[in-house]
């Protein structure tokens, strides 16, 4: 028995082999299992201690075991995957490695969204696993999101085994599998041998987590998972280049001079401010200069919206569309990817433009840049604030103070005007205005709630997001739909003590509701609110704007946007996944439903509200036309 224990602890035999050895020696199955369970913590502690100060550990086992060992060494705690039979040796390895938790997701898309949500909310590395190319292609929508959002998510799927099947265009096989993800990843690679699995994984994590972040993909033939090899696993800190760079000091001086001498500077903030935990630093620089602050579309809200220097979001993605300031002469972007969605540049020609972010690749692509500051945004803000402070004289201070007051007056007025939304004559109607649903939720949400927002046609108001200790936003920047529910589940997994509310449109929801099952199974008490107007509102409005007065308008025949008849009942869908749910028709019903949702979540249960929302806009009829068969 001692020998069996030693062999098990050294991973020379599997869990099954250990049990078989014990039962062969005459020990009952129950007793053998009990012995095995008692050894798991010992094995765990032994494994944890085995990586030495040099960060290297030699492992011997199957390719699947080596994969598990490298994931642990790379700092992974959760693995998100969908059933993949060729990964059997990896699943086998999980049994004795309780520190590596596997989350089975019933569809690869929401599964990848859940992984991304977990990663974004925790800052921890993770991996998404799919079955061959068939699972991979399901996950690729969220891979696109991760690429656009610069989320360092690692994807893995095996490919057909090379021992006899590969190369025949056989079952679940495609040529050059690792190449189909190339435009959506920073790195994609195929391991050539089983002993190279850890190395390939390490590089995938290193590439994903080296700024600018982004998804990576690795793959190998499935038979490599079964081969027994001896190889090294290496701790992540031994391969991470820790690329936190300071900006060029000469450029910092130039930027500081421009900002100090500006008549009306304007700051645009973005995701890198949040991801480098630099919100307070951005506030400090803005306050030093009395500088108004705005933000273009991103995942997070990266500036406190109740701050007197906050002037609101860019209405149509251009600084020229702001109500205030109308004529900035110096614009500084701090960590925003500045994704263009129109031919017009987001920053117009004229004002001097300072671009501070780590993503040098996208700098200068659209806007001429007077001062590029390639840097970790937190370091960049520190250096810039220090340089500005050096240049601030009493007269500059007075100027900044006067500007601060001017911005504050605008900000206060804007705040009052935004509250007029509730004066809508249809405020109390049923089905509800989307604005009413939003207002009720804003009133209901806890002061540090996390809002996951994938309701495409809904503009949020009243939340006063504050990434520095208040409410946080996770927006669907990438726009491959079906991410909201999965993201919310992942966020709740990462931040169990925070209230998580998922706002999702009916169109988006129906692309990816399967993570509701994960919420129920893992007891992730998320409140999901579906804005259900039984339609795709965005595409409806946009085709009308494209073809004003066209045949669609004249006849009322819209082929592409009505999701009713029969109306989808999202509460039934939720119940099917084990999540308590109800339909709310009116504001009063919504309030009551939110109360029940709070109670459920306090009991550790997720809850869904199917909020019935009115269709509004051009050419919507109560009973819209439906294409015939």
């Amino acid at each position, binding site marked *: 028995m001692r020998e069996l224990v030693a062999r098990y602890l050294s991973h020379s035999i599997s869990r099954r082999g250990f049990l078989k050895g014990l039962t062969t020696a005459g020990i009952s199955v129950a007793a053998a299992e009990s012995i095995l369970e008692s050894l798991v913590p010992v094995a765990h502690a032994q494994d944890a201690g085995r990586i030495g100060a040099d960060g290297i550990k030699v492992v011997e086992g199957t390719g699947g075991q080596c994969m598990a060992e490298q994931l642990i060494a790379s700092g992974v705690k959760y693995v998100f995957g969908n059933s993949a039979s060729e990964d059997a040796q990896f699943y086998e390895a999980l049994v004795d490695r309780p520190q590596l938790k596997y989350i089975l997701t019933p569809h690869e898309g929401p599964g990848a969204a859940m992984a991304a949500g977990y990663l974004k909310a925790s800052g921890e590395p993770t991996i998404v696993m799919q079955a061959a190319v068939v699972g991979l292609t399901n996950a690729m929508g969220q891979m696109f999101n991760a690429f656009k959002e610069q989320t360092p998510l690692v994807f893995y799927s095996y490919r057909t085994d090379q021992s006899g099947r590969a190369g025949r265009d056989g079952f679940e096989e495609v040529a050059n599998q690792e190449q189909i993800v190339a435009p959506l990843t920073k790195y994609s690679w195929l391991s050539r041998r089983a002993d190279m699995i850890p190395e390939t994984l390490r590089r995938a994590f290193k590439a994903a987590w080296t700024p600018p972040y982004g998804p990576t993909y690795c793959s190998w033939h499935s038979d490599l998972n079964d081969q027994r090899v001896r190889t090294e696993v290496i701790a992540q800190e031994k391969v991470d280049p820790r690329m936190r760079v300071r900006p060029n000091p000469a450029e910092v001086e130039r930027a500081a001079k421009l900002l100090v001498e500006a008549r009306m500077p304007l700051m645009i903030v973005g995701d890198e401010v949040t991801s480098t935990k630099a919100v307070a630093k951005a506030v400090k620089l803005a306050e030093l200069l009395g500088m108004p602050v705005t933000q273009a579309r991103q995942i997070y809200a990266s500036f406190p919206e109740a701050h007197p220097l906050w002037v609101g979001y860019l209405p149509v993605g251009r600084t020229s569309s702001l109500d205030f300031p109308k004529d900035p002469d110096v614009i500084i972007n701090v960590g925003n990817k500045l994704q263009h969605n129109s031919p017009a540049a987001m920053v117009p020609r004229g004002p001097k433009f300072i671009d501070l972010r780590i993503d040098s690749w996208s700098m200068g692509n659209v806007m001429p840049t007077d001062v590029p500051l390639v840097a970790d945004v937190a370091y960049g803000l520190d250096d810039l604030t220090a340089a500005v402070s050096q240049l601030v004289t009493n007269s500059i201070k007075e100027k900044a103070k006067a500007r601060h007051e001017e911005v504050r007056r605008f900000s206060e007025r804007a705040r009052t005007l935004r509250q007029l*939304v509730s004066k*809508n*004559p249809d405020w109390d109607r049923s089905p509800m205005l989307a604005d009413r649903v939003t207002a009720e939720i804003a009133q209901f949400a806890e002061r540090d709630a996390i809002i996951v927002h994938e309701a495409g046609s809904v*503009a949020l*108001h009243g939340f006063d997001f504050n990434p520095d200790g208040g409410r946080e936003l996770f927006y669907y920047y990438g726009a491959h739909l079906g991410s909201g529910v999965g993201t919310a589940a992942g966020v709740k997994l990462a931040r169990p003590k925070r209230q998580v509310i998922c706002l999702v449109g009916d169109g988006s929801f129906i692309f990816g509701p399967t993570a509701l099952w994960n919420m129920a199974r893992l007891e992730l008490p998320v409140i999901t609110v579906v804005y259900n107007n039984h339609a795709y509102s965005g595409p409806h409005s946009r085709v009308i704007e494209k073809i004003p007065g066209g045949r669609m308008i004249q006849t009322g025949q819209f082929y592409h946007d009505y999701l009713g008849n029969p109306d989808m009942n999202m509460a039934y869908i939720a119940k099917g996944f084990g999540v308590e749910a109800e339909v709310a028709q009116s504001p009063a019903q919504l309030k009551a439903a939110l109360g029940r949702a709070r109670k459920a979540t306090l009991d550790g249960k997720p809850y869904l509200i199917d909020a019935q929302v009115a269709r509004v806009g051009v050419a919507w009829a109560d009973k819209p036309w439906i294409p015939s068969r």
Partner: protein
Amino acid sequence: MELRRIALICATLFLALVLSRGALAQQQKPAAPGFPDAPGKNVLVSKCFQCHTPAMWMDQRQDRRGWESTLYRMVGRGALWTEDEIKAMADYLGTVYARKPQ
């Protein structure tokens, strides 16, 4: 003769001035085809055309209350308007783009 010439020059200058001011006014006036002059138009053009093309209005026909509701929904999307401005725009749209008779 000299007086007539001076008078002619003055008349020409005056006409040029009037025409140029008219042309200037024409240039300054925001292009808004399909939007007849009426009270509230200027507010509408200055506030809404920042984000929308005229196509947004051409096919939308509703009564004043409907327009008022539409305008308040724009407040929810970030528009910063006073109640008076909303009233002026709703009055205008309720008149110019009223519901078509059935």
